[in-house]
């Protein structure tokens, strides 16, 4: 299968073309074609996984064009990292596509949704298999485009349109810094392919601070796409899109692309002197982990809470990569993909049932939606790192490496873990425990399309619950695959530190403490949230306003933008137009002045001639 690796991205592309072209007239209005496409790709991915495990590697390069004497070779690479990612994307995407058939049922633009999904799958697979900066960047842009299209799928709702635009622009900022990084690398190493660049770096063509700058710039792209600290503002708003989109793009695949990018260009980060680039990655990851988690605590919209959770988990992955535990970071990515997708789909089915996103209007759904509840519970336990679920293995590996590497990072991670446990507990109690609080039918803005009236919540149809169960199995079972994974996906020379028991115990205790705190406040009401809110007024408002980051951007950029616009307008009006008008006026004036010269009478002209003669002779004599 390896030599035909290029076939994998091709399948979803074909599906996309077919669905866009024939659309509604296809069987199942395009859904089946899309599912078939991604399912096949997923199978091939698994086959690829098997072959790479057996040791087969391949780098299918193809000379595309000769740029000024330098051939530009592009192609696909098959190695453990890309195989794992292809498999993960394939499996998760097919499950989500199946799920969305039920979720999107009755939507007027049903077939177009699946076309966009296929396009997204193609670009994600394309990005993952790329073996050079050009292809990865191309995939990067395509993925961004699809996220814009899918977030703004219900474009008639202004909030969705604004969110899509915001997502696109913010990620563009990241892409821009990534492009500059790539250009710096290209200028110095003369090639775009990863191996070529890494050889160039090894050969010392680029080094020292410039290399660190290039690495950080490339990491900037990841920050943009994976919504890390400075550029995280777009992800919570992206929840405007349909839930399967949030699940697929904003949980499992696209946001993970940033982590994949750092992993793929790891030698770049390693070579930077004193691992400066890696420490930058680690700290940004760590801070984001804690920072995003805190914001999740005060969210009432179930999807926004999960969004902040994703941002924080991505922070953990970068933390992992930053503290030189390459395989732990990647492993956490895979496990996170499964249980976060599951959480989103679960939330989706809940919204589908109660037609509202607001947790305050839910409650007591455990009895009404048993399958959703249990799968949701499994995913929550995995996320908060409760053994024996997968989250425990991957997250603790990262914390372990962080502790060995840098104490403060470990502290950040642990605090993050506590807060994660707290807000996931809060979410679970609010949604599934207690009595049903949602009275008003179809009230909140979350419900749309497929969700029919609230009133009496009931279990989602089988087409939605089956993928939930499969994902739940993955979320639960994957943890045990850690050791083979470590051997399979590892970077030569980067070893994970030995696991130390006390640390594991500490992290589990932290998670349980989180759960207990949430239960105390929301389930057993020892310290009701209203009381808490009154005492912690300041921090509460700070968190609600998301540390005023949005406002800051709004104020700075809009104000700056306004100023620039004003300046440009003035400049254009007064300087550019000014000059043009001045020329016009001048010629007019000159013409008017010269008019008196041309009197039409010969003697005037003769006079001028002889006057000129006299002047010339006098000047000649004088000089």
């Amino acid at each position, binding site marked *: 299968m390896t030599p035909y690796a290029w076939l994998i991205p091709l399948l979803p592309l074909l599906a996309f073309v077919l669905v866009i072209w024939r659309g509604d007239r296809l069987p199942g209005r395009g859904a089946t074609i899309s599912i078939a496409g991604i399912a096949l790709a997923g199978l091939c991915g698994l086959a690829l996984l098997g072959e790479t495990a057996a040791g087969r590697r391949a780098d299918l390069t193809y000379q595309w064009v000769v740029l000024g004497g330098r051939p530009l070779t592009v192609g696909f690479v098959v190695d453990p990292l890309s195989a794992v990612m292809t498999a993960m994307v394939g499996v998760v995407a097919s499950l989500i596509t199946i799920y969305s058939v039920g979720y999107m049922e009755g939507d007027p633009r049903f077939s177009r949704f699946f076309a966009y999904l296929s396009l997204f799958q193609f670009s994600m697979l394309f990005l993952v298999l790329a073996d050079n900066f050009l292809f990865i960047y191309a995939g990067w842009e395509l993925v961004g485009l699809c996220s814009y299209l899918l977030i703004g799928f219900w474009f008639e709702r202004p909030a969705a349109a604004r969110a899509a635009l915001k997502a696109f622009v913010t990620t563009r900022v990241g892409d821009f810094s990534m492009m500059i990084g790539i250009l710096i690398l290209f200028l110095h190493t003369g090639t775009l392919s990863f191996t070529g660049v890494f050889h160039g770096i090894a050969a010392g063509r680029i080094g020292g601070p410039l290399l660190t700058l290039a690495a950080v710039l490339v990491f900037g792209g990841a920050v943009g796409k994976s919504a890390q600290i400075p550029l995280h503002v777009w992800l919570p708003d992206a929840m405007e899109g349909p839930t399967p989109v949030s699940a697929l793009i904003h949980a499992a695949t696209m946001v993970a692309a940033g982590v994949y990018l750092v992993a793929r260009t790891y030698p770049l980060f390693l070579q930077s002197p004193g691992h400066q680039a890696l420490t930058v990655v680690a700290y940004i990851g760590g801070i984001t982990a804690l920072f995003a988690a805190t914001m999740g605590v005060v969210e009432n919209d179930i999807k926004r809470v999960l969004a902040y959770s994703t941002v924080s988990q991505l922070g953990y992955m970068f933390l992992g990569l930053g503290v030189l535990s390459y395989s732990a970071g990647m492993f956490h990515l895979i496990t996170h993909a499964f249980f976060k997708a599951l959480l989103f789909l679960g939330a989706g089915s809940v919204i589908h049932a109660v037609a509202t996103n607001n947790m305050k209007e839910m409650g007591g759904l455990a009895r009404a939606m048993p399958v959703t509840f249990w799968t949701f519970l499994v995913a929550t336990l995995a996320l908060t790192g409760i053994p024996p679920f997968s989250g425990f293995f991957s997250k603790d590996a990262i914390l372990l490496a962080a502790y060995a590497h840098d104490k403060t990072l470990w502290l950040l991670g642990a605090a993050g873990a506590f807060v994660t446990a707290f807000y996931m507990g809060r979410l679970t109690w609010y949604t599934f425990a207690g009595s049903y609080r949602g009275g008003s039918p179809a009230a909140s803005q979350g419900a749309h399309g497929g969700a029919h009236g609230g009133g009496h919540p009931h279990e989602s149809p089988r087409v939605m619950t089956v993928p939930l169960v499969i994902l739940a199995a993955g979320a639960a079972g994957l943890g045990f695959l850690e050791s083979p994974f470590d051997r399979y996906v590892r970077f030569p020379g980067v070893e994970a530190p030995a696991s130390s028991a006390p640390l594991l115990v500490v992290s589990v205790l932290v998670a349980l403490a989180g759960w207990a705190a949430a239960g105390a406040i929301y389930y057993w009401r020892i310290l009701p949230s209203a009381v808490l809110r009154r005492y912690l007024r300041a921090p509460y408002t700070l968190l609600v306003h998301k540390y005023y980051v949005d406002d800051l951007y709004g104020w700075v950029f809009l104000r700056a933008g306004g100023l620039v616009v004003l300046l440009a307008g003035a400049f254009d009006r007064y300087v550019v137009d000014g000059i043009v008008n001045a020329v016009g006026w001048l010629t007019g004036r000159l013409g008017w002045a010269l008019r008196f010269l041309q009197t039409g*009478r010969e*003697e*005037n002209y003769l*006079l001028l001639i*002889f*006057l000129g*003669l*006299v002047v010339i*002779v*006098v000047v000649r*004599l004088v000089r």
Partner: protein
Amino acid sequence: MTGEAIAFYALAAVILVSGLVVVSSPNIVHSAVALVPAFLGITGIYILLGAEFVAGIQVLIYAGAITVLLLFVIMLTEGGTGLRLQQRNEQGPVGASVAVAIAVLLIAGVTHTTWGRGAGTLPAYTPGAIGQSFLGTNLLAFEGTSIVLLVSLIGAVIIARKEE
């Protein structure tokens, strides 16, 4: 003061006086008629310079033909009747100053340069010599002038003719 100098200054006086009359007299006919003494004065100058043939031609053409032509045209156009019209246009003073300036410049130029003393005696001057060179070395000029004469003759006739 040899006889020649006296003659020169007398002739110069005649020329300049009649020139002034030509230039400044309000009556156009007066200025036309004053041309004749001017031309005759210049003929005298030519004779002083020993150019009899040129003097003869000057009298024949300038004094005889061109002045007559001028008088003819004055009579034919209202120039003659419109005697009392203001003869000078509005750039009088400026024109005068330019003319004076040029005169001063020329005179300055002339007096400052030292001319050769080569005023040797002329050989036995005969119109024949001119004839020889006209049809010899300067044949082209001669033919050219004849063509110009022909063309201007026909042109003048055509322009002046009254279209029936």
